C-alpha cells in the first residue's frame, strides 16, 4: 500500500506494507543511507533518527507508527551540504573510527542539544547510553558533544 511519510522536511509517498521498519524505507526507498542497520532489534542505536524531535530507533519503528509525524535523519542536519555545529564538532574531534555508529550518535546527541543546549556531563552520558560504538571512540564522541554544547569555550576537557 502507499503511505505518505514526512522525512527531512518533505513528504514522500512510499510503496510498502505498514509494518515495514522505517529504517528499510529510509535506506532502500528514499536512499538516505545515513541511518545504518546494526542489530535490527533496537539494541545498538546505529539506526537512530529523530521522530518529532526525539531520538528513536528506526529499525523497530514501523512506518505505520509515523503517519503525521516528522522524521529527521543525519542528512537533514545539513540540507545544503554544510555541516551543522555538532557534525563539525565530530569532525574536529575526529570522533569516528569505522564510523558505522556515528550517524546514530549524532542524531541522538542533536536531540539532546535541541532540548538542553548546555547539558552537564552526567546528562550527556545518561542520554547517550543507548547507543553503542564497537571501536571504542566514546571519549572522542563525548568530547565532540561537549564542544558543540560550548563552542566558544577555550578549554575542553
Amino acid at each position, binding site marked *: 500500500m502507499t503511505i505518505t511519510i514526512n522525512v527531512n522536511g518533505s513528504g514522500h509517498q512510499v510503496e510498502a506494507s505498514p*509494518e*515495514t521498519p522505517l529504517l528499510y524505507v529510509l535506506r532502500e526507498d528514499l536512499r538516505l543511507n545515513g541511518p545504518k542497520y546494526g542489530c535490527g532489534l533496537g539494541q545498538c542505536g546505529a539506526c537512530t533518527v529523530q521522530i518529532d524531535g526525539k531520538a528513536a*530507533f528506526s529499525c*523497530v519503528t*514501523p512506518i505505520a*507508527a509515523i503517519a503525521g509525524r516528522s522524521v529527521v535523519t543525519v542528512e537533514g542536519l545539513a540540507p545544503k551540504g554544510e555541516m551543522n555545529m555538532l557534525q563539525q564538532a565530530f569532525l574536529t574531534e575526529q570522533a569516528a573510527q569505522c564510523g558505522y555508529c556515528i550517524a546514530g550518535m549524532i542524531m541522538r546527541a542533536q536531540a539532546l542539544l535541541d532540548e538542553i543546549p548546555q547539558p552537564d556531563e*552526567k546528562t550527556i552520558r545518561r542520554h547517550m547510553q543507548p547507543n553503542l560504538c564497537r571501536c571504542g571512540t566514546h571519549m572522542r564522541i563525548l568530547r565532540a558533544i561537549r564542544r558543540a554544547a560550548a563552542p566558544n569555550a577555550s578549554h575542553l576537557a
Partner: protein
Amino acid sequence: MIRSPAIRRPIPPLLIGFIVAAFAALAVTWRPAIERIAPPAPDSFTPQIISRGAVLAKLGDCAVCHTAKSGRPLAGGRALPTPFGTLYSDNITPDPETGIGTWSREAFRRAMRDGVSRNGSHLYPALPYEHFTHVTDGDLDALYAFLMSRRPVALEAPPNSLYFPLGFRPLLAGWKMLFLQKGPVPIVIGKSAEWTRGAYLTEGLGHCGGCHTPRNIAGGEQTSRAFAGGVAEGWRAPALDGSNPAARHWTVDALQTYLTTGISPDHSAAGGPMGPVVDSLSSAPPRDVRAIATYIAAMMGNGVSRPALKLADNPDGATKAFPQGATLFAGACAGCHSTGAPMLGQGRPGLALVSNLRDDIPTSAIQAVLAGIDPPVARRGPMMPAFATSFTDQQIADVLNYSRARFTGRPAWTGLAKKVSQGRKEISQP
C-alpha cells in the same frame, strides 16, 4: 457604612480541646537529641562485623535509595518522588557534618527502630522503619559498623519539597502511632528454619512490603492486605500473595534465579525499581536469597496444586480485535517476541508467561514499553529498548492490547491511551 459591633465570643471548647491535645501530642512525641560522639575510627570495628554489615546492607538495599544517580555510594541525595511531594535521601556515610559520623550506636538503632534522627526530629517513613524496627540488635550493630567504616563523603542532600503541612515533622509522630508496630517478626511454630529466616529478612531489612503492599491514603501499609501488590516509582509492584498473576507458579528455584539474575525463563524480567534490588541481591549470600524465595513462594501458595495453564498464542483473534496493534507488533516487537524469535531461545520468557501482560493493572506493561528494561546485574543480560519516542500513546495502547489479547486471552485493558499518557510523566528520561 454601618459597622456591626465587635462581638466577644467565648473561645469554643473544641478549640481548647484541640490546643490541649496538640500540646499533649507534642509532649508525648517529643524525642531528645542524642549526644554527638567523635566519629569512631574504622579500625575500632572488627573485620568480621564489618563484612557481616556489608552483607546486611545488600539484603536491605541501603545503597539503592541512599545513592544519587551517578553519585557516590551511600552519600544520599537521591530524589524519591512520593504522593506527598519529593524527598531526598540522607547521606549515611560517616561524614561528621553532612552524614552520620557523629551518630552513636544508640542513635543509629533509634533511627532504624523508631524513625527518629540523632537530633530528635522524626524521620519520614520513606526510610522504611516500620520494617527495620524488626531487625535484631546484632544486625543493626553490624550495619552500623559497616556504615561507619565507609569513606566519609561530604554531601548535603537537597531540601525536601513536600506539600503543606507535611514539612512539619512532629506530625510524623501521629503517623507512627497508627502504622509503626514495633517488635520482632513473630516466630511461627512448625515452619522450617529457612522459612523463618526468610520471614525475618523479607519483613525486616528486605522491606519487600514497602513496595509490594498497597498503601492507604496516609501512606501507611495496609497490613490486612499485605503483599497484595503496590506501586513503586510509576511501576506496579506485583502481588506476592495468592493473587499473583503468573501463568506458571513461582517456585523457590524460579524466585531465587529471578532475584539474583533479574530474569526467570518461566516468568519475566525485572524492570524499573526492581532492577536495583536484583543488582543488590545478585551478590548477597545465596542462602539468604533462598530463604527470601522460600518465604515468598509460600506466600504465593507454592505447593498448592493448580491446573497448569495452556500458554496462549492467538494471533488471528488478536489481529481481528486490534488490527493497528497487530501491524505495530509485527514491525516493532516480533523480532524478539513472536513465536520462534531467536531471542526466545536464550532463556527469555515468551510473552504468554509475562506477568505484567496478565495483570489486571497495566502500569508495569506500559512502563516496560515506554522506558524499556535495562539489564539489572552489571549491565549484562536481556535489554529491551525504550519505545517512548517511537510510539504515540494510542499506538502503545494498541500494541499492548493486541499483545494481551494474543498471549493471555484476558479482557482488554480500558482507557489505556490515557494511562500511557500518565505513565509518560513518570519516566524522567527520553
